C-alpha cells in the first residue's frame, strides 16, 4: 500500500466504475426514448409521449451525474498516469479530442433542449433533439472504446528510441477489429441496463397498482428490448469478443477460466474457486470441451493454461478476474432466461397475473449494472499486467512524481464526493419514480 501504483489503480478503477454506472443507462435509454418518441409521432398516441416525457426526466438527472463524474476521467490521464499520457498521448489524444469535439458538444448543446424544450420546439424538433442525444452518447462510446481497444490490442503504431508511441495509420487505429467487437458488446450491454430499468419501473407501478397504462407500456418496451439486447450481448457480440481474447490475450482467457493446465477439449467451469498458490481450481463443476468450442470454434483446439505462460505475464489479480468473468457470464445467462419468460408471458397475456414474475422483473434492475461492471473489470483486469497489451506495463505508466500519500488523499476525497452525489441522485430519482409519469415532480 506504500506503492503509489496501488493507489493510482484503485483511484482510477473507483472513479471509472462509478462514472460508468451513469453512461450505461444514458446510452441505452437514449435509444428507448427515441423509440418512444418515434411511436408518439407515428401514432399520435399520447401514451407514448407521456412515457417519453417521464424517461427524459430520468435521463436528464442521470446525464447530469454522468457529466459530473466524467470530469475527472480525462484529467486523471495527466495527473495519475502521466507517463502513459506522455508515451501514448499522440495516439489516445486523437480519440479523446474527437470525443470532445464531436460527441460532447453535440450532447451538451441539445440536452437542455431535450429536457426543457418540448413546448418550445414542437414534436418534430424535440424528436430531433432526442436523436442528437442518442447520436452524441453513442459516438462518445465509439471514441472511448477505440481508445480502450488500442490498450487491449494495439494496432497501427510504432515506437521510437525513447519508447514514445506514434501512429503509422490513423485508419488502422480507428478501425481496430477489437474495437468493433467490444463496441457492439458494450452497447448491447448498455441496452440491457436501460431495458431492465424501464421494465422494473413498469413492474413497480403495476405491483403498486398505479399508472397502469404507463406500467403496461414500460413492460412492453422494456421486456421486448431486454430480450433482444440480452440475446445479442451473448451472441454474436460476446462470442466475438471472447474469440478475440482467446486469440490475442491467452493469459487473460486462462485466468478468466482459472485454467492452469493446457490441452484440447478444454472444460468450461461454471463453479469453482481459483487456488493460485497451488495452481488449480478448487471444487470445480464444468462442462468438458465447451471452452475449446467457444474460444476457437473447434472441439480439439488447445486452450493454453497459465502453467505454459511466464508468471511475469499473468494478470495481477487472477481471483478477481475469474469472479468478474463468471459473474458477468452467469448474470448474462440469467438475463436471457428471465426476459424470455417475460416476453412469452406477456405475449400470452399472463404477465399481469403473475405477481412473482413482476417482482422478479422489478428486483432485477440492479443486476445489469453489476454485470456491466463485472464485464469491464474482466476486460481491464484481463489486460494486466499491461497498460498497452504486450508492449507497455502498467507500472511504467504511472506519474513519476505523485506519491502514494497524495493519491490516497485524493481517493478519499473522491469517495466522499461520490457518496454525496450518489445519495442526491438516488433521492431525486426515487422522487420521480414515486411521483410517476403524470406531470413533473420538479419545482414542488
Amino acid at each position: 500500500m506504500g506503492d503509489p501504483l496501488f493507489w493510482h489503480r484503485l483511484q482510477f478503477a473507483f472513479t471509472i466504475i462509478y462514472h460508468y454506472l451513469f453512461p450505461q443507462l444514458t446510452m441505452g435509454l437514449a435509444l428507448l426514448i427515441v423509440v418512444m418518441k418515434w411511436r408518439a409521432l407515428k401514432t399520435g398516441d399520447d401514451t407514448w409521449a407521456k412515457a417519453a416525457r417521464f424517461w427524459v426526466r430520468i435521463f436528464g438527472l442521470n446525464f447530469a451525474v454522468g457529466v459530473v463524474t466524467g470530469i475527472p476521467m480525462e484529467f486523471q490521464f495527466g495527473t495519475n498516469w502521466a507517463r502513459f499520457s506522455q508515451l501514448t498521448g499522440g495516439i489516445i489524444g486523437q480519440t479523446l479530442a474527437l470525443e470532445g469535439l464531436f460527441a460532447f458538444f453535440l450532447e451538451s448543446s441539445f440536452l437542455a433542449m431535450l429536457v426543457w424544450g418540448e413546448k418550445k420546439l414542437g414534436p418534430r424538433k424535440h424528436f430531433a433533439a432526442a436523436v442528437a442525444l442518442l447520436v452524441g452518447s453513442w459516438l462518445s462510446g465509439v471514441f472511448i472504446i477505440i481508445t480502450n481497444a488500442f490498450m487491449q490490442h494495439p494496432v497501427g503504431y510504432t515506437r521510437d528510441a525513447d519508447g514514445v508511441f506514434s501512429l503509422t495509420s490513423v485508419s488502422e487505429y480507428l478501425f481496430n477489429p477489437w474495437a468493433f467487437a467490444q463496441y457492439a458488446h458494450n452497447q448491447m450491454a448498455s441496452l440491457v441496463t436501460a431495458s431492465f430499468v424501464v421494465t422494473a419501473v413498469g413492474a413497480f407501478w403495476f405491483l403498486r397498482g398505479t399508472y397502469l397504462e404507463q406500467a403496461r407500456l414500460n413492460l412492453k418496451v422494456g421486456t421486448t428490448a431486454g430480450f433482444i439486447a440480452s440475446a445479442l450481448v451473448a451472441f454474436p457480440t460476446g462470442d466475438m469478443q471472447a474469440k478475440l481474447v482467446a486469440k490475442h490475450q491467452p493469459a487473460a482467457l486462462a485466468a478468466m477460466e482459472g485454467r492452469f493446465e493446457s490441452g484440447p477439449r478444454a472444460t468450461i467451469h461454471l463453479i469453482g474457486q481459483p487456488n493460485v498458490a497451488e495452481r488449480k481450481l478448487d471444487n470445480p463443476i464444468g462442462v468438458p470441451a465447451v471452452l475449446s468450442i467457444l474460444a476457437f470454434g473447434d472441439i480439439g483446439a488447445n486452450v493454453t493454461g497459465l502453467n505454459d505462460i511466464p508468471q511475469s505475464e499473468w494478470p495481477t489479480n487472477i481471483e478477481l478476474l475469474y469472479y468478474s468473468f463468471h459473474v458477468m457470464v452467469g448474470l448474462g445467462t440469467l438475463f436471457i432466461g428471465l426476459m424470455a419468460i417475460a416476453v412469452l408471458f406477456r405475449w400470452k397475456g399472463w404477465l399481469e397475473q403473475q405477481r412473482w414474475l413482476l417482482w422478479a422483473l422489478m428486483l432485477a434492475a440492479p443486476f445489469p449494472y453489476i454485470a456491466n461492471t463485472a464485464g469491464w473489470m474482466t476486460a481491464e483486469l484481463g489486460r494486466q499486467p499491461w497498460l498497452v497489451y504486450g508492449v507497455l506495463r502498467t507500472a511504467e505508466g504511472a506519474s513519476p512524481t505523485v506519491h502514494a500519500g497524495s493519491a490516497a488523499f485524493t481517493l478519499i476525497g473522491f469517495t466522499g464526493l461520490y457518496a454525496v452525489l450518489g445519495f442526491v441522485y438516488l433521492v431525486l430519482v426515487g422522487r420521480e419514480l414515486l411521483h410517476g409519469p403524470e406531470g413533473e415532480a420538479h419545482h414542488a
Partner: protein
Amino acid sequence: MPELWFWLVGLMFTAWAVLDGFDFGVGILHRVVARTDEERRQVIGAIGPVWDGNEVWLVAAGGSTLLAFPKLLAAGFSGLYLPVIFAVWALMLRGASIELRSHLGSPLWRAFFDNAFFLGSLLVPLLMGVALGNVLRGVPLTAAGYFELPLFGSWTPDGELGALDWYTLLCGLFVTMALTAHGSTWLALKTDGVVQAKAVALQPKLFIATGVLWALGGAATFIVAPPSLGVGFWVGIALSVGGAAVVLTRRRHELQAFLGSCVFVAGQLVTALGGMFPVVLRARPTPELSLTATNAASRGAGIDGALIWWVPGVLLAAGYLWWVLRHFRGRVA
C-alpha cells in the same frame, strides 16, 4: 506544424476562458446579486442552456493538448497534482449544483447547492489562474521532463517556489476578478429587474479591481519571469486594451459591453500565450530544460492528419453554440 498547434490549442483554451469564464463570474456573483429563490433561478437560467457546452471547450482543449503536446499535459497535471484535483472537485461540485439545485423545493436543499455553486465557481478560476501562474513563472523541470512542487511555497518574492505562492496566487486573484467582471456583463445582458440592476451597480468596483490586479500581476510578471515581447504579446495587449476600452465606454450598451469583455478576456490569454511562445512550460531555474512547442510535440500520422477533423469539429461546435444562443435569445425573467 507544432507552432500552429500551439496557437490552435491556445485558441481552444481561450474559447473556454471567454465562454465558461462568464459562467464562473455569474456563479461568483449570484449570491450577491440574487437574494430570493426567484432571482437565483433567474441567474441560473441565464447560464443554464450554455454552461455545459462552454465547459466542453476545456475537455476538448485538454484532449487536444494530450494529442499535440503529450509531455506538457503529463508534466503539468502530475506536477500540479493537488491543485488540479482540487479544480476537478470544484468543477464537479459546480456542475452538480447547477443541474440538481432546482429539483427539490426545500429551502435547505437549495441553500446547500447555492453555496456549493458559489464555492465551485470561485475555486475553478482561482485554481486555473494559479496553474497559469505556475506555467508563466516556470517550474523546476528535471531532465526527465517532470517536476515536483510543494503545495505551499514562500510568500516572499525571492523564497522557495510552490504551486501556491505569492505570485501564482496573485495570478489566481486576477483571473478570478477578471472573470467576475466578465460575468457581470453577461448578467447585464441576459437578465432584467433587480438582478440586472445589482450586477450593473457592482460593475465600477469590479472593473477597478480587475484593472488594479491586472497592473499588479503584469508588473510582477515582468519581475518574476519577463515575457518575450513578440507579435503575439503585443496583439494580446492591443486586444486587452481595446476590449477594456469598449467595456468602459459602452457600459450602457449591454451587448457591446459583453463583447468588449470577451475581447478583453481573450486578449489576456493571447498576451500570456504570446509572452510564452514558443515555450509551453518554462523550466526554472534551468531554462534550457523548458518544454517548447517543438520538443513537447507528438509525432506521427495522428497529429499530421488531425487538422482534417479539427477544423470541421471546431466549426461544428461554434455552429451548435450559435444555434443554442439563437433559441435562447432575449432576457431571462
